[in-house]
């Protein structure tokens, strides 16, 4: 099943995207987490590949990266690992990591591998700015992969328009100034910005950074199309059962939310 077909099937439901760190503490656990995510009915997962110098991440994900690196997890080892799980048994995957790891493969190789493995919807690359991403976007687009763009609280309107013009996959709306895992307080400014964004794009607008509880997710889902839950879940990664039950709470909240309006 391609992510596109799945997107069409549940096109208006609110989306939950868990972030998990591949290889934390090893790929067997990652496999268990992917199966849990599939059972919970997530829209997609963001599969983090550990990088030694994660400048956009807070302490929780930094520590997870160190654990995963001690198991020698790499972009190519994760791609091969995904290839061992049938696509039907895992949710669509967005690979999430820093640009240097893609360069260690070359973009062409990554694209080829992603197609071979299947079930990879695209990538989220926090340090690849819109300005520097032209070639990557082109290579991704040519093979049906999405390079997910970020919009942050500091992104100006002219810039938002530029980013939306070439956007693909979903819009990653960064909820706060800072790094992943920082405590988020909801504000009317954020709500207004997300609502405005939803009017400007057909793509799902998903909010991430600092979403700690299903209650907070519920409030954010009132005005967005989805939530990305990272650090809070990463804290439970060593226990797939506990991780799964926490994730299901987020998914239940999403299912109970009114469907997205613009789709």
């Amino acid at each position: 099943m391609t992510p596109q077909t799945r997107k069409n099937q549940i096109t208006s439901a609110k989306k939950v995207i868990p972030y998990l760190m591949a290889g934390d503490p090893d790929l067997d656990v990652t496999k268990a987490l992917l199966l849990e995510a599939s059972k919970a009915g997530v829209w997609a997962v963001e599969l983090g590949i550990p990088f030694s110098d994660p400048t956009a991440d807070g302490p929780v994900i930094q520590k997870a990266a160190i654990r995963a690196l001690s198991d020698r997890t790499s972009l190519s080892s994760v791609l091969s690992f995904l290839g061992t799980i049938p696509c039907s048994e895992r949710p669509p995957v967005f690979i999430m990591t820093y640009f240097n790891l893609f360069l260690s493969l070359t973009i062409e190789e990554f694209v080829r591998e992603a197609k071979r493995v299947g079930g990879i919807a695209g990538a989220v690359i926090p340090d690849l700015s819109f300005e520097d991403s032209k070639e990557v976007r082109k290579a991704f687009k040519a093979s049906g992969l999405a390079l997910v763009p970020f919009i942050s609280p500091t992104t100006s309107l002219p810039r938002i328009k530029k980013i939306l013009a070439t956007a693909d996959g979903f819009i990653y709306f960064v909820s706060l100034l800072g790094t992943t895992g920082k405590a988020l307080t909801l504000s009317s400014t954020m709500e207004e910005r997300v609502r405005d964004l939803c009017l400007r794009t057909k793509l799902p607008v998903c909010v991430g950074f600092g979403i700690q509880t299903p209650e907070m997710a519920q409030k954010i889902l009132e005005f967005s199309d989805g939530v990305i839950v990272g650090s809070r879940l990463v804290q439970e990664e060593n226990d797939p059962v506990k991780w799964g039950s926490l994730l299901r709470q987020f998914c239940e909240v999403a299912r109970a939310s009114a469907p997205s309006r613009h789709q």
Partner: protein
Amino acid sequence: MKNRKQVSESARLPDHSGYFGEFGGRFVSETLMEALYELEESFKKAWSDRSFQKEYQNVLTEFVGRPSPLTFAEGLTRHAGGARIYLKREDLNHTGAHKINNAVGQALLAKRMGKMRLIAETGAGQHGVATATVAAKYGFDCEIFMGSEDARRQSLNVFRMNLLGAKVIEVDGGTKTLKDAISEALRDWAQSVLTTHCVMGTAFGPHPFPLMVRSFQSIIGREARQQIMKKEGRLPDALVACVGGGSNSLGLFHHFIGDESVRMYGIEAGGRSLSPGDHAARFQGGRVGVLQGSKTFVLQNPDGQILRTHSVSAGLDYSAVGPELAYYFETGRVHFDMVGDEEALQAFDTLSRLEGIIPALESSHAIAYGIRLAREMGQGKTLIINLSGRGDKDVLEVARLRGGVLS
């Protein structure tokens, strides 16, 4: 002719996207992008604004103590037995190194931009001290990020920063050195970007930092050029500078880039050996990658994970190198070589005893190579070594390495 054209074109780099050839760019999170544009615009406006230039020059004269002398190193020249060696005396600047040139410039810029707080990363501590100094002078709040291993090696500088009213935040992540301090500074900036200016200390990171730092440091070469013309009546045959990120080397090189007859040597830290993790010679053991905002040569393993580095000098102990230098490596304009810990420590002694100047361990790498080069070049030639900083900060560490304990 073609060569000349290439050279003069390279003096105009980076291009409008912040690239020097294929190197540079702005590889940071979306949150920082608008701040980078704001900074670029403010910098370009200030740099071409006469009143800003006047204020900057005035602070360099009255506060930093510029121009720094170009000293003929008689003892060192005799010792090497070849080319005449001149030392560009950045060690005589206020706070003891070239770092203050850039810190002053960025502080004046931050003031113009209405920022209230300065943050900075530091390796050897010289940039941290320089930033803490200008923060004290202009009334900014100031926090300095420093790897805990570097803070141990450079405890004297930590104390100086505290005296100047800055808060030093020791970074325990990763390798506990400069690279991790930069990551932490970038993380802080993503959170504080509306009120804070991040004072990058070297010609590295996302555009416009490489351009801005080079510009604020280019005073070194501008003075050196006038001084050597006055003393020797002609351009030098060679320039030598140590290379961490690239601020002191580009500072010296910039005004000579168009002079084909002037050979340029950038000296990296050879550390203990050329095994991965034992050195910081990016052009010897690195390949093109992206780290902390910039596409450049990076020491990394086959998976793309950044390697540890080692050098006796904290200021050269870094896994990547400024993008402009990567470009000069590719084009061959700058020749890169390396000097290991042992040879640098010998040069530390040699300069102390022959010239009465205790050099920073970073600069000792350039001194060591300069001695070799002067010998090779032979008599009748001249060369300038950038003495980027003084060694007061290093005496405790050198004593410790030699088994003596000072307290």
